[in-house]
């Protein structure tokens, strides 16, 4: 009935005992790394031991800034020879963040991924098409290895090229696909342009959607378009990638795999846990990672625990879909973007004024990032070609920085309101 019958149905008490045991192993492992080796609370916890999993609150948090500061190898807790894979995601400014895995880590991740897909009803009889970027983005390889572990025929289709996606679906009878939600509207349009109806002309029965915040209404729309069940997937590269939390066929919250992670929800100001059911910042600790254990990672994602047992019988707690961020990061086309990254690019250009605005909009069912930029009056020579070149130049620089191609809109100097205090630079008007 489950991918791992015993583990997925562990009584709370047993689950917490397993967590505590694994946490101590993780701390011992983490202490090998330059970063955690110098954290006194970890040394102390290892010396005196922890009596319950609740005592995790005696350990300090780890932030993205920490990962950035100790980039690239400061969190390495094994011999470098052991490492077999590296993923990297964007940081706020300067250094990105690197996450490395040894064979054990990859196998554990693939297992969590297989468990997640199984919970959403995917079986080894399915043909699985992974419509997302491979490479540094964890959604590609994460789903690929999970689907192979589960035993699906797994098609590494990659992102984009809708006509090819549709052809693959039709040729091989794809029954399950994974994609970011904002792409599926576009794919549906191409089905229509080709006079095809995914409900009639494909064997799709399940879509897995994730890597982008989306609403319940958006999910229902996707289900309607494709005539499928769509399941929400949550993950972040610091915690492996996809396979951290996943919806089961009840479609009522995402089971977060508590044998692999300690999960807390805290108030980002007081840093204290919030009452059960309150929405706040998700904090996670890895329990089954060797090359790079991370203790109490501040994900900045906002969510809450859903109360009560799930009808599916799994005992791992459920979190609600992610409702936002406790920092100013936004996600577009599956990529994490910090406004500071864009500011960093713009402020290096002498032609560009200090004020800018980032508009996130839905244009023809596609999410777009529109960056409004002021051209300084003293750089203006009355020359169309110059402005055209500048526009293309900015587009390329931002694309290289955040991996999303922006639409650059040059505006008149002084037309963007001056920043006062903490300026709001990002206007999210995407249709939900």
């Amino acid at each position: 009935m489950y991918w791992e019958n015993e583990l997925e149905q562990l009584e709370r008490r047993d689950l917490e005992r397993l967590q505590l045991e694994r946490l101590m192993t993780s701390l011992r492992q983490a202490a090998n790394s330059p970063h955690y080796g110098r954290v006194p609370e970890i040394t102390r916890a290892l010396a005196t031991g922890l009596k319950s999993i609740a005592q995790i609150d005696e350990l300090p948090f780890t932030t993205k800034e920490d990962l950035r500061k100790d980039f690239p190898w400061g969190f390495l807790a094994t011999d470098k020879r052991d490492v077999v894979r590296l993923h990297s995601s964007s940081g706020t400014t300067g250094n990105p963040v690197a996450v490395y895995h040894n064979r054990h880590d990859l196998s554990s991740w693939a297992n969590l991924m297989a468990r997640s897909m199984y919970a959403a009803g995917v079986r080894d009889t399915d043909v699985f098409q992974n419509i997302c970027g491979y490479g540094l983005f964890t959604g590609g390889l994460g789903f690929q290895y999970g689907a192979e572990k589960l035993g699906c025929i797994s098609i590494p289709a990659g992102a984009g090229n809708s006509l090819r996606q549709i052809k693959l679906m039709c040729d091989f009878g794809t029954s399950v696909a994974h994609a970011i939600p904002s792409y599926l509207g576009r794919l549906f349009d191409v089905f229509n342009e080709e006079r095809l109806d995914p409900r009639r002309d494909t064997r799709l029965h399940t879509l897995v959607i994730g890597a982008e915040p989306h609403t319940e209404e958006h999910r229902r729309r996707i289900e309607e378009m494709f005539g499928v069940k769509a399941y929400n997937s949550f993950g972040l590269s610091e915690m492996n990638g996809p396979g951290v939390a996943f919806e089961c066929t009840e479609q009522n919250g995402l089971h977060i795999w508590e044998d692999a992670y300690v999960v807390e929800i805290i108030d980002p100001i007081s840093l204290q846990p919030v009452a059960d059911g309150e929405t706040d910042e998700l904090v996670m600790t890895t329990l089954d990672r060797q090359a790079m254990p991370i203790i109490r990672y501040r994900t900045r994602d906002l969510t809450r625990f859903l109360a009560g047992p799930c009808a599916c019988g799994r005992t791992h707690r459920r979190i609600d879909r992610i409702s936002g961020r406790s920092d100013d990061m936004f996600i577009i086309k599956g990529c994490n973007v910090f406004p500071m990254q864009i500011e960093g690019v713009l402020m290096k250009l002498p032609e560009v004024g200090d004020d800018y605005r980032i508009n996130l909009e839905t244009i023809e069912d596609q999410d777009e990032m529109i960056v409004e930029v002021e051209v300084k009056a003293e750089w203006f020579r009355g020359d169309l070609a110059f402005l055209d070149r500048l526009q293309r130049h900015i587009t390329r620089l931002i694309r290289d920085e955040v991996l999303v191609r922006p639409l650059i809109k040059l505006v008149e100097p002084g037309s963007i309101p001056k920043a006062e205090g903490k300026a709001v630079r990002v206007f999210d008007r995407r249709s939900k």
Partner: protein
Amino acid sequence: MSYQVSIFLENKIGRLEKVTAVLKDAAINIRSIHLNHTANGWGILNLVVSDPELAQQRLNAKGMSAALREIVVVSMADRPGGLDELLKDIVRAGVNFTNAYGRAASGGDSAFLVIDVEDIPGARAKLAEVGLEMLADRQVYGS
């Protein structure tokens, strides 16, 4: 040397009128207008006016991006085929332009064509070689 005033404009209601209001207040006469819009929501307004320096100064003072850009202005006959004859000469001269716009002079049978080229001195020399008449500032800016 003649100049046009080039102004960076967003494609929004009222932007062009903001420019003309400034020129009106400075009693500057517009002799020719050309609006160049891109698909990106902005464009450049090119104006031949009676006093380009003053126009630029007043527009800049209002926070607008206005620049003076040197142009070549050639005369042509104000009758059917006039532009074609002129262009044949320009082709013969081997001058490539990136932008062109014109107007008819009032009360006469002549008109002028403003052309925007990369290499102004080179273009002047080539146009003179094929015998084309370039207008003096006084004729371009009007009285």
